[in-house]
């Protein structure tokens, strides 16, 4: 494992720990007052138009966990689950986009009429690495 990989991994773990602590622990002390929009809606009157959410019965609705009551654990489990789901979806999307970008012919070479054989796996990422150094 190169030093670069180790440093990246260390940063990723650190960032993830912060996100999990914020969502799973610190969020317990978040303000429960209505947010700006909900407050304005209630004060001015258009809040009465609100319709119930179609998924109000889902397991994590309202950032609580069904079956765990309304205490610390309920919010903690929901928060940790949310971080995990978001990480998986955004990370997965990134992976797909990167693969697609890598499979795309690199603009400069395509214009020269050359094939990109053997270079497609790293694609533009490898190029940008060159440029930035």
């Amino acid at each position, binding site marked *: 494992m190169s030093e670069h990989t180790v440093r990246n991994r260390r940063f990723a773990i650190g960032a993830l720990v*912060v996100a999990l602590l914020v969502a799973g622990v610190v969020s317990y002390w978040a303000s429960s*007052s*209505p*947010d700006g929009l909900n407050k*304005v809606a209630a004060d001015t009157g258009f809040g009465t138009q609100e319709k119930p959410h179609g998924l109000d019965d889902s397991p994590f609705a309202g950032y609580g966990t069904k079956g765990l009551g309304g205490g610390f654990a309920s919010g903690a489990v929901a928060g940790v689950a949310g971080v995990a789901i*978001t990480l998986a979806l955004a990370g997965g999307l990134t*992976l797909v*986009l990167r693969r697609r970008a890598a499979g795309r012919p690199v603009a400069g070479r395509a214009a020269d009429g050359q094939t990109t054989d053997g270079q497609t796996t790293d694609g533009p990422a490898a190029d940008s690495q060159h440029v930035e150094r």
Partner: protein
Amino acid sequence: MHVPDGFIDVPVSVAAGAVAVAGVGICLRGARNELDERTAPMAGLVAAFVFAVQMLNFPVGAGTSGHLLGGALAAILVGPYTGALCVAVVLIVQSLFFADGGLTALGVNITDMSLVTVVVGYLVFRAVVAVLPKTRFGVVAASAVSAFVAVPAAALAFVGFYALGGTSDIPLGTVLTAMIGVHLLIGLGEAAITAATVGSVLTVRPDLVRGARHLQRRLELRQPGQGGRPPGDRDARERPSSSMTQEA
């Protein structure tokens, strides 16, 4: 600022959905060029972080709270296209798994809180970075300013949708004044969180802040100068074993 179902009528919600789909489509294309070896691993982390911090409602005045929107933050960390995708993923997760933000209002919410905050936040960031000193402090200050502006911009976008398809007869001026007023306060919190986060990442891994790459390049160019080479000495670049080619 998650809009529930019922505030905006169906036709305008559908139109907002079309805007959101088009915007996300543009971002999917644009993000391919941003996702290099530094940004790609960051994108998932940024989305997860924005989700987490959005749970932290902070009090703003009597009986009101606000939370991070995160568009400016994400755009500064991973670039505008990838950043908008990150926030859009967060909003979709919140609506589908946490019943936060209406299902029919998803288009309104993605437009307001992802597209508008990213576009406004990123443009303001670039403009402010350009006039401030090219230092870490300059980047952090620009982050704060852009985050502060992005929040009332998102509130304004909501009022725009309300003007087009609001389901109540509350006068537009009343809604506009109230929305901008409270979101200027929430913008202060957004600025503080954004500046603190960008500042922290700049401290541990300055190379991972996409909006600070101009600092990175400067540092790299300077390094050979440490050997006493006067700035602008072009000959140094042509020497075969010049220190320019070495990584510090």
